[in-house]
């Protein structure tokens, strides 16, 4: 339904999040897409269904999210630039293959347009897959970089970044959006960047003229598997060192700092505007990489703040990482669940409570 309005190059286009992310992947040179219909990300699949075959690229609607992610695994093993997208319940089904791909060190970009849970939950927007994305999905000692856009334009940029991080570190990367980021329309300037994609000679092409290669996660001898794990952890340390991202708004004089990502950060922005109009100096710390979590930067910001208020579309997940990062600054939380979105008014109320319950910074 979007992009019915043609515009001159570099003029912004009004684009739906799901479709903008699909286009961004295509412009990033995505070779293959696999998916399964689920609200609220179906438009992404539909967009790829139309555009990928036109470009002679691979599109398969799989029999399940399990099928989709494993097709992604197979295509990624050949060095292809692969996108898979889903929403929360589908992400749960993909957990197994995520673990295999982390173990096999395969690059892939996975978009989760989160909806309310647990179980079948609702199709409303949610951020209740934070734990899943940053701490878990599958079994084993592994981490996956998680990028969270707070606007459609940022989602477009992060698609290219996500591919690049995936290839650079041979790792799955999750772009964690929510129903609002998927369903809303915002202006996007159609300027894309081609991510660096270097497979460096591990990809399967058929063993013509070289030694055979095997892409696998199985290392049955404990000594060998431990070596593999140590190497993975070294990689994760490098990612944590180099790929931590966050953004701040109005932090310079902020006494109360909201910590929020994605749609919650947008709500926070409105709340901060209102709070400041009422004389309360609030600011925003917005993690963009949820793993690696910007703990050090947050701790520095917290050191100057009277209180922190974490806002999420969840019962409180990222707040745990905030509490781990922050030293003595009190941390408050406001969240809505089930597809409900916190209102700016609620957030302002919470800011006032935080103000009332804390003392000025010495």
């Amino acid at each position, binding site marked *: 339904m979007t992009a019915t309005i043609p515009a001159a190059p570099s003029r912004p286009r009004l684009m739906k999040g799901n479709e903008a992310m699909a286009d961004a992947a295509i412009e990033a040179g995505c070779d*293959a897409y696999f998916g399964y219909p689920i609200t609220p990300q179906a438009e992404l699949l539909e967009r790829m269904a139309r555009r990928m075959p036109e470009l002679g690229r691979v599109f*398969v609607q799989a*029999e399940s999210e399990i099928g989709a992610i*494993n097709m992604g*695994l*197979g295509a990624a093993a*050949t060095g292809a630039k692969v996108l898979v997208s889903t929403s929360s319940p589908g992400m749960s089904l993909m957990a197994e293959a995520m673990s295999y791909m982390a173990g096999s060190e395969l690059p892939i970009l996975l978009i989760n347009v989160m909806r309310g849970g647990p179980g079948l939950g609702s199709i409303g927007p949610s951020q209740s897959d934070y734990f899943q994305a940053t701490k878990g999905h599958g079994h084993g000692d592994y981490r996956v970089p998680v990028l969270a856009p707070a606007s459609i334009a940022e989602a477009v940029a992060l698609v290219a970044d996500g591919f690049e991080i995936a290839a650079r570190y041979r790792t799955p990367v999750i772009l964690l959006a929510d129903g609002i980021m998927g369903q809303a329309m915002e202006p996007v300037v159609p300027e894309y960047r081609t991510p660096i994609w270097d497979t460096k000679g591990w990809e399967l*092409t058929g063993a013509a003229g070289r030694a055979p290669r*095997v892409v696998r996660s199985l290392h049955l001898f404990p000594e060998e598997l431990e070596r593999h794990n140590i190497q993975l952890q070294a990689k994760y340390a490098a990612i944590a060192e180099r790929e931590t991202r966050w953004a701040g708004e109005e932090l310079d004089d902020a006494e109360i700092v909201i910590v929020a990502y994605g749609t919650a950060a947008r709500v926070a922005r409105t709340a901060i505007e209102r709070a400041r109009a009422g004389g309360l100096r609030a600011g925003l710390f917005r993690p963009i990489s949820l793993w690696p979590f910007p703990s050090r930067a947050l701790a520095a910001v917290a050191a100057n703040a009277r209180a922190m208020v974490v806002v999420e579309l969840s019962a409180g997940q990222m707040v745990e990482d905030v509490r781990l990062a922050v030293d003595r600054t009190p941390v408050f939380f406001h969240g809505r669940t089930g597809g409900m979105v916190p209102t700016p008014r609620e957030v302002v109320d919470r800011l006032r409570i935080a103000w009332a319950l804390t003392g000025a910074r010495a």
Partner: protein
Amino acid sequence: MTTTPVGGRRIVYQRPTLLTDRSTHYCPGCGHGIIHRVIAELLDELQLGPTTIGVASVGCSVFAYDYFGIDFVESPHGRAPAVATGVRRARPNAFVFTYQGDGDLAAIGTAEIVHAAARGERISVVFVNNGIYGMTGGQMAPTTLLGQHTTSSPLGRDAAVAGFPIPITEMLALLPGVAYAARGTITDPGQIGKTKAMLRRAFESQLAGEGLSIVEVLSTCPVGWGLTPTESMAHVTNEVTAVYPLGVIVDRRRAATRKDGS
């Protein structure tokens, strides 16, 4: 098989070039070694080694990639047909086969094999059916015969509790996306030759872009069955083939050719 004269003597039997010089971890009397060899011979004969990407599954054959001199990707349990789909679609010129056991293909991986077949993916499936979960200690598989004793059906498989053996290759043969489906075994050189012919037809079917091809190979698990290797072969011949009959189940190209009268 190579029969090049060397120093006045003819080599009548040797390791296929695409089998690595490595002892397998398979138990004595296990059929995997024979099936690996037949596949390696065929890949040699069809000159497919340089373009093949194998898809390994989970089960005893999980280490298949150690024994073939070709590119291989591991897949999660049962997902090999989905992984193979991704490989084949991303690399249309690759020759792609999966190597799956009966637990992998006929239990946990039913959705993946059925839909790969429905899509008519240009892949070949080597389906090794020995009616048991060998790797995990001999538990009942979906293909286990009625009355068969396993570690998870200690009193024998009872249909009232555990249902019936699945003739999954026949089920798959119903799908128009399946170009070729057949069942062979490895109980004696004659049967091995027939199975090799089936696999050749399956591989050629993929090369011709006809659709998914599958060859079920009835194999043995002497350790899991509690039989000697010889007894195991006899068990396949006498008991297993009665439930899973040997032969070509569907060959859509030949069927079409016959219909044309040519």
